[in-house]
């Protein structure tokens, strides 16, 4: 017997969580688009956001959503610096070098967090953690709604940037054809560090947004979220922002529905199952176009 109100509530929760996954996937996809490299440290940037919020909570007692105002610009700058310092110098080396570099970065971030915060799981308890808003028969968690608002704002801003600004157009051009972009006068090296900064900021935002909802540990959580980011982008189709959003929402819904109608301890496995099915049946991704090159 399927209770409609509960189903709608699960669906809404799935979409709200999925929005955060979308942020993570979009960051990975943007970086892949302009740098043609998979960032294996992406999930660790998410965790960096989580521990940033933990720190702000411990030291200043800041609400995570308030700490976002500081975390966002800091993450952007950190991402740009990391790109300049670590990835730019090996830009012309074989492709596996940048892959290995991000893998190394992942190890460094995870272990620095371990060193600083220790291995026990951390979270941020917000006073409104169990508050809900009732719409008809459906109860929605305030924390999830806040997460939804934050992700909608971020994705809206991102779309505005990519579609409506000069620099956004340069980013899209660089992603579509780096040589073509360079020849019209776009400094694609600068675009790359800028986009890496954006990707980092998106990951950190997702981490800050999620920390009231879960417990994080330094290395394990990063690996989980890097994996989720892969799942999201492959579900949608790698390299396209809209597809990553679709993939993120889908992953959220699959996880929440799976956990509420089947065994909840396998929550992360349902996403992987969907991932495998998509890979088998539609390897170009659910929303991916058949690849066309000029």
């Amino acid at each position, binding site marked *: 017997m399927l209770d409609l109100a509960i189903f709608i509530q699960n669906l809404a929760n799935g979409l709200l969580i999925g929005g955060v996954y979308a942020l993570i996937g979009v960051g990975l996809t943007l970086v892949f688009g302009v740098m043609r490299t998979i960032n294996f440290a992406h999930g660790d940037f998410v965790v960096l956001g989580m521990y940033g919020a933990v720190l702000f909570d411990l030291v200043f007692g800041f609400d995570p959503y308030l700490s976002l105002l500081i975390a966002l610009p800091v993450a952007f700058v950190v991402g740009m610096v990391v790109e300049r310092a670590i990835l730019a110098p090996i830009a012309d080396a074989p492709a596996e070098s940048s892959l290995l570099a991000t893998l190394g970065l992942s190890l460094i971030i995870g272990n620095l967090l371990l060193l600083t915060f220790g291995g026990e799981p951390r979270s941020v308890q917000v006073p409104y953690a169990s508050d809900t808003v009732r719409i008809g028969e459906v109860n929605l968690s305030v924390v999830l709604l806040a997460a939804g608002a934050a992700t909608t704002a971020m994705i809206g801003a991102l779309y505005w940037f990519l579609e409506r600004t000069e620099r956004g157009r*340069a980013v*899209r*051009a660089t992603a*579509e*054809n780096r*040589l*073509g972009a360079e020849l*019209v006068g*776009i*400094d694609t090296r600068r675009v790359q560090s800028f986009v890496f900064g954006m990707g980092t900021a998106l990951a950190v935002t997702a981490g800050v947004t999620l920390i009231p909802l879960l417990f994080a540990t330094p290395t394990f959580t990063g690996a989980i979220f890097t994996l989720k980011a892969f799942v999201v982008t492959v579900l949608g189709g790698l390299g396209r922002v809209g597809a990553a959003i679709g993939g993120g929402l889908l992953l959220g819904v699959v996880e929440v529905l799976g956990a509420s109608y089947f065994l909840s301890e396998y929550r992360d496995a349902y996403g992987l199952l969907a991932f495998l099915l998509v890979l088998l049946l539609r390897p170009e991704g659910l929303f991916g176009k058949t690849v066309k090159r000029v």
Partner: protein
Amino acid sequence: MPQEFTSPILSVENVDLGYGALQVVTDVSLHVGAGELVGLVGGNGSGKSTILRAISGMITPFGGRIVFDGEAIRAAAPHQMAARGLAHVPMGRQLFPNMSVRENLLVGATLPAARAARARSLEEVRALFPELDAHMDAPAGQLSGGQQQMVAIARALMLRPKMMIMDEPSIGLAPRLVKDVMAAIRRVAHTGLPILLVEQNVKQVLAVCDRAYVLENGRLALEGSAAELQGHPLVRKAYLGL
């Protein structure tokens, strides 16, 4: 010849070029004067693209030098050469396939100076390529090969360049489209823009250009006016099949 008295916009002076330890171009000198359409022709692997890469700052000469607009070219990223007024229409067009034709053209005017004149450039370019009018909002990747080549040239013009270099614009096109593209290049040259046109299609190039250089195995074999080269026994035998 007036261009003998004014300094050329581009002069390549005794350059040796190559990749790593491999030298592929030896002691090549050529120049392009104001308002000239100059051809650079040669067979597969003769070093034509390598010369264009050096002009765009993608590779540094082993020896010799290249002077563009009165200043020597050093190892610079291509975007810096674009900022100096060099438009490079690369091999394979390198368009932004999912962006509309209009956006491809707008991206062509990204640099501040070009951006200031963007609306005017767009009008001028559309007047030069009326065949693109019907496709302005279509993704560039959906156009025919000939139209895509027009977009690539039009995008380069949006830079309001001082000179244009082109790498095999006719490659892979049906003969009728080759004629269209060559006619378009002729129209661009008529605006007074100096052009260095690299091609394997010797017949078509000699039909449109003022002068040409013939490259063989990384060395200049011949140079002269289009009329001289069309009558040259070596060119007639090796390239025109006469």
